[in-house]
Each structure stands twice: as C-alpha cells, then as structure tokens.
C-alpha cells in the first residue's frame, strides 16, 4: 500500500472519529470541535487523493480545494464559536434542548466548573 493511500485512509478514520463524536456529544463547543475534526479528515483524504495522481507533481485541483476549504472551515468554526459564546453569555448554558439537559449531560468531573 503506497504511503499516500495511508494518508487517505487516515483521513477517513479522522473523519469518522469526528462524526462519532458529533453523534455522541452534547456540549456545543465539543460539537464545533468535532465538526472541525471531520473537516480535517476530509482535507487529508483530498491531499492523499492528489498524490495518487502524481505525474510527477501531485494533482493541483484537490490541493486548491483544500486551500479553499481550510479558509471556509476557519470561517465556519469562528462563526460557530461566536454563536456558542453568545448562547452561553445569554443563557449560561452549553447545551441545547431542555434546560435540565445541562445537568444530566454534564460529566461528573465538570459539574462544578
């Protein structure tokens, strides 16, 4: 297995780790981070794919897409974090849903934080 295929496979795994976290978590900031991790996995897949088409240089189109994607991801993350902060400032909460969810879903170690 060539090394760039390992990158692609690693990208898939990173994407899945982020996706799993997105499904399993409820803390808003961690959801934003999970989304960001999924994005990073996608970029690694694209970079790995670009190297598959090396002739002799990697395919510039996926590289350009990654560059574009990084900037868009940064914008999305910044916007999401700003919205989470605003939500927290207004309500004092870090979870969506009924207000009892905050207590029920906060891990024991973070209760007093």
């Amino acid at each position, binding site marked *: 297995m060539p090394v760039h295929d390992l990158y692609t496979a690693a990208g898939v795994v990173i994407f899945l780790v982020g996706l799993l976290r997105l499904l399993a978590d409820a803390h808003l900031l961690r959801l934003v981070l999970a989304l960001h991790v999924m994005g990073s996995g996608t970029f690694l897949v694209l970079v790995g794919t670009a190297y598959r088409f090396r002739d002799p240089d990697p*395919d510039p189109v996926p590289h350009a897409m990654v560059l574009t994607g990084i900037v868009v991801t940064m914008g999305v993350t*910044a916007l999401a974090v700003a919205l989470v902060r605003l939500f927290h400032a207004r309500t004092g909460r870090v979870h969506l849903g009924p207000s009892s969810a905050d207590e029920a879903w906060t891990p024991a170690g973070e209760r007093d934080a």
Partner: protein
Amino acid sequence: VRRISARRLLPLLLGLPGVAVLGVAMLRAVDGLPADATGLTRAIEVRMPDSGVSHPVTGVLLNFRAYDTWLEVVVLLIVATIMLSLRRGLLPDRASATRDAITVGLVRRLLPVLLLVAVFVLGLGTSGPGGAFQSGALLAAGGLLLFLAGYPITRLAEGTLLRVLLSAGGAAFLLAALVGVALGARALEFAPDVAGAAILVIEITVAFSLVVMLFVLLVSASPEGEE
C-alpha cells in the same frame, strides 16, 4: 473516570453501526480508485501557459476555478458580517494601559518581519506556494498582535472604510467577471495575455480584504466585551 450517562450512550450505540458502515464504504471507495489515472494534472499542465501564472495551484485557484475562490471570499464576507452584527461592530481598542514592555517589544520586533514575509508570500503566489490567503493570514496575525498589545488598531478600520475593505475582495472578482462579459468572453474567463495582470490585481485586492475579514473574525471571537 468520566461517567457516561444513558442519554449520552444511546446515540453513541445507535450511531456506531451507521458510522462503521459508512467507514467501510469510504475505505472501499478509496481502495477502488484507479491506480494509474492522472486526475486533472495533465489537463492543468496543458493549459498552464494560458493561465498567466506559473504555479499550478495558483492557476487553479485564481483562473481555472476562480469561481470557487470568489465564493470562498464571499463566505468569509458573510461570516465577518454576521460577527459584526452579533457584536454590533468591532470591539473597541484595548486601553493602552494594557501595554507592557514585553508585548510592545515583541510587536516592535515581529511586525516588520511579518510585513516583509507577507509581501514576499503575496508576490510568491504566481510562481510558488503562496498568494493572497497566506499573505492575508500573516497580516491578520500582525493586526491581532497590535490589538492584543493595546495599540489603537480597530479605530483604523471603522465605518465606511471597514465596509469597503471587507467587500473589496468579492467586488474585485465581480468586476473581473463583468469586464470579461462586457468584452465578449464568459464570466471569469481571462484571455491569456491579460490573465497575469488580472490575477495580480485580484490577488492584491483579495489580500487586503482578507486581512480585514480575518482580523474581524479573530477579534470578534475574543471574550472581551461580552454582556
């Protein structure tokens, strides 16, 4: 050890099989990609002399797929606009009292180097990895340094100037597209003899715009000034 409550465990257990199936499908798709294809490398190589630049990634970003880059700049403009609306404008400058010898010393030494590298990276874009986005990121970092060190930086970009700078990048692409259409070409289709100049003008404008957009994003994400 963190306690996982039933309410957290349930979506995890339900999601796990789905994610596993998706993972297998994705890895199989990767494995099934043809090994001897050349992707778009060949197509880009053939058209590179018409692109007006010599670096293939820049050629893709600002010529062959300029539409993507245009929309990317617009996405950032939308994000910056929402941030400014949420904050009702830029944060006020920090009091100069927060300035101390270490931050001032750091800013004084770093900023000239940052400026130099940013200009170099912008010019490098036509022939190597670099260009408006990398340059804009460096300059925005410089602006953030100034902001954190308590220099009156947000006062420099307020009101009309802020709006003009924010929209300049998207407007440059729009103008290039309109001029192209007016001259009988398709939108964002650059004739080979003017492509280089057009890309350079767009890159410089986008770089200016990006500095302000990224600066707005970074400053707006800071915890200060929240109610």
